[in-house]
């Protein structure tokens, strides 16, 4: 989807090219695309609308940075706003109490039981707490059994009353039992319920009143659509919960529900479920979630890095040289060093959406750059400015001086010539006639056949 948004933004910003500033008119189309991207990610309808309005306010009047495409600049604003909305920093859970009580609530199938067991495991093994699980789902067939099995796997006691159908009473007795046993944290698993089920909502409210939990957590499936807004609102009205747990994030959903819930109830997302294994519970990273909703790799960091490293004046000079076909080895070297300053190549490539997977298992040889640098540095200033004069004997000298061989020198010079040709074509692109473009397009079409 990101590629989709990206290319749509590209179209939108054809308008902006040549304008130095983002204005209401040239941003409208872009924002429409941003809004659609959010809706495709399942962000609530009204939330997406409010959000794009906010982005508009932020973006209008900003100068278009020369080094960065305006598309990327907008994406960065969107991303920054999104991250801000997701919550600044991580919020932990309160486990002080005698015992501390954590009430786990949510819709059917959101993953409450699995989360309860994962949380018990985390508190026990990472925080050194003694934990008790309470089987408060007395409705779903085998729900108690499920909790018992999970608890056994992680060696945590379960309080259950198989004959009792009253979760309020069960929870109360569980807490007295935990007190006697000196347990630190009690986690109460409850039955899934719909927010419009008055009877069941009254029940969960009664449980909360009876046990006065330190933490009431609302568990929500990351794949939830527009209904996330309603459900979160209703649960919060009745329970005023303390935090949100986002489950099944190991799927490929964009997880716009996270933004909906967060915006509607203004409560922190405390945990995310990222797998079926008992350890697969993670704390929440607002920035990662923003990336995910927008469906992008770390293009934002890429933009930030570019902003840090690339001198705008240099870029302007380079542009001029390119269009006048004066691009030489000195410029090439400068470019090379700028890219190197931006960091590890593999990391950089990984920031490009869709590329992370591809480069994960491949080795990108950083030495390639070292050799190129050495070859260029072995050229005389005259050769660097005017590569045409580099003949056979000069090449031999350069190869020797750089500790490489003739093939490598030849390859670089050829590559440089090719690059120059391509770059000139692009920088002079405005002058390309329509006929030329069509000709090229047809050629491509033919080739694809």
């Amino acid at each position, binding site marked *: 989807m990101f590629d989709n948004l990206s290319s749509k933004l590209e179209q939108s910003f054809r308008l902006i090219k040549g304008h130095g500033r983002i204005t209401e008119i040239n941003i409208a189309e872009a924002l429409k695309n941003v809004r659609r991207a959010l809706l495709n990610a399942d962000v609530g309808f009204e939330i997406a609308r409010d959000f794009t309005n906010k982005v508009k306010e932020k973006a209008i009047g900003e100068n278009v940075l020369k080094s960065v495409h305006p598309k990327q600049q907008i994406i960065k604003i969107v991303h920054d706003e999104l991250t801000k909305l997701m919550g600044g920093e991580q919020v932990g859970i309160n486990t002080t109490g005698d015992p501390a009580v954590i009430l786990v609530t949510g819709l059917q*199938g959101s993953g409450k039981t699995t989360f309860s067991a994962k949380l018990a495991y985390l508190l026990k093994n990472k925080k050194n707490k003694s934990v008790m699980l309470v089987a408060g789902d007395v409705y779903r*067939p*085998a729900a108690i*059994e*499920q909790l018992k099995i999970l608890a056994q*796997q992680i060696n945590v006691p379960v309080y259950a009353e198989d004959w009792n159908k009253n979760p309020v009473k069960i929870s109360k007795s569980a807490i007295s039992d935990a007190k006697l046993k000196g347990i630190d944290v009690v986690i109460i698993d409850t039955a899934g319920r719909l927010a419009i089920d008055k009877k069941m909502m009254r029940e969960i409210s009664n449980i909360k009143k009876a046990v006065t939990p330190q933490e009431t957590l609302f568990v929500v499936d990351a794949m*939830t659509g*527009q*209904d996330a807004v309603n459900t979160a609102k209703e649960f919060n009205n009745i329970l005023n919960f303390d935090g949100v747990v986002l489950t099944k994030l190991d*799927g490929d959903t964009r997880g716009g529900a996270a933004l909906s819930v967060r915006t509607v109830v203004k409560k922190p997302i405390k945990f995310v479920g990222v797998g079926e294994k008992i350890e697969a519970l993670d704390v929440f990273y607002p920035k990662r979630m923003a990336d995910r909703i927008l469906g992008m790799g770390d293009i934002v960091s890429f933009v930030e890095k570019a902003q840090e490293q690339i001198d705008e004046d240099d870029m302007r000079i380079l542009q001029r040289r390119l269009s006048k076909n004066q691009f030489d080895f000195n410029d090439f070297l400068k470019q090379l060093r700028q890219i190197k300053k931006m960091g590890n190549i593999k990391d950089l490539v990984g920031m490009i959406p869709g590329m992370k997977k591809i480069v994960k298992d491949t080795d990108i040889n950083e030495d390639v750059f070292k050799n190129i640098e050495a070859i260029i540095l072995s050229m005389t200033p005259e050769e660097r400015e005017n590569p045409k004069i580099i003949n056979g004997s000069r090449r031999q000298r350069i190869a020797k001086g750089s500790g490489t061989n003739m093939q490598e020198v030849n390859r670089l010079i050829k590559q440089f010539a090719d690059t120059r040709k391509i770059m000139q074509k692009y920088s002079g692109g405005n002058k390309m006639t329509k006929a030329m473009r069509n000709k090229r397009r047809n050629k491509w079409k033919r080739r694809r056949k």
Partner: protein
Amino acid sequence: MALFGIFSKKKKEKLDKGLKKTKENVFKKLTRAVAGKSKVDDNFLDNLEEILISSDIGIDTTLKIIDRLEARVAKDKYFGINGLNKMLKDEIAGLLSENQSIENTNNWNSNNTNDPYVIMIVGVNGVGKTTTIGKLAHQFKKDGKKVYLGAADTFRAAAVEQLDIWAKRAGVPIVKQKTGADPAAVAFDTLKSAKTNNADIVIIDTAGRLHNKKHLMDELSKIKRVMKKIVPNAPHEILLILDGSTGQNAFEQAKQFTKATEVNAIAVTKLDGTAKGGVVIGISDQFKIPVKYIGIGEQIRDLQVFNKKEFVDSLFK
């Protein structure tokens, strides 16, 4: 007479009740947008867009519906809310494919009189697969069919126990092994024993799995393959269960499960809440997979045969 007493008045009332909140919103907004106007204007389309997207219909399908509506309005002209409502319903219903005829749902033809009709249940975690099986078993049994259940969710804790309880409630036999057993082996055993005992219908439960986990999707393909050794045409039906509150990710679910197992029917669950399950409209349109059942509650009777007219009506009444 159709199997489920399709949309008997009482059940219809229940569905209406479940969808009531939606309807009030939809109706109010649309009426407001249309009031006193003689043509479709931007304000109306904006409102319509909001309504459709808020039902999880998704932006692409929403635009498709709006485009079609505009084209119809240009051609037919439109007069007042009633005409428009009908047009809208027609357009949405047009995107939904369903079983060609209701009789089809009654025709458990396995192409071989000795073989049972095999239904394999697939879906992501927590959508309500096991509950749906319980309800289906109850309905088939009530209809006088001999039903067998296969507990091939051998992964999730207490999944076997859960299905076991449903089997008892419905009064049908179940074939099971221990948690951790090979699910394909369980499916194999179930078919074998169902065939020996001349069962009419077999329903195979499978573990919930996220569709982006390749090894788990491969496992499904294997379960499917192994069943053919007993019943060559099995599974006759691969029923994908979608949670009605799921958003646009349901598309990807439909795509990946179809890739692994050739899904040929869909059931949408949890439609008794505020979620509208609008995403199935786009899915049905794009993948041409009929929506067969909808789940509207936790009781054993709370399953209905899907009827697109009723579904769309309930949204826009």
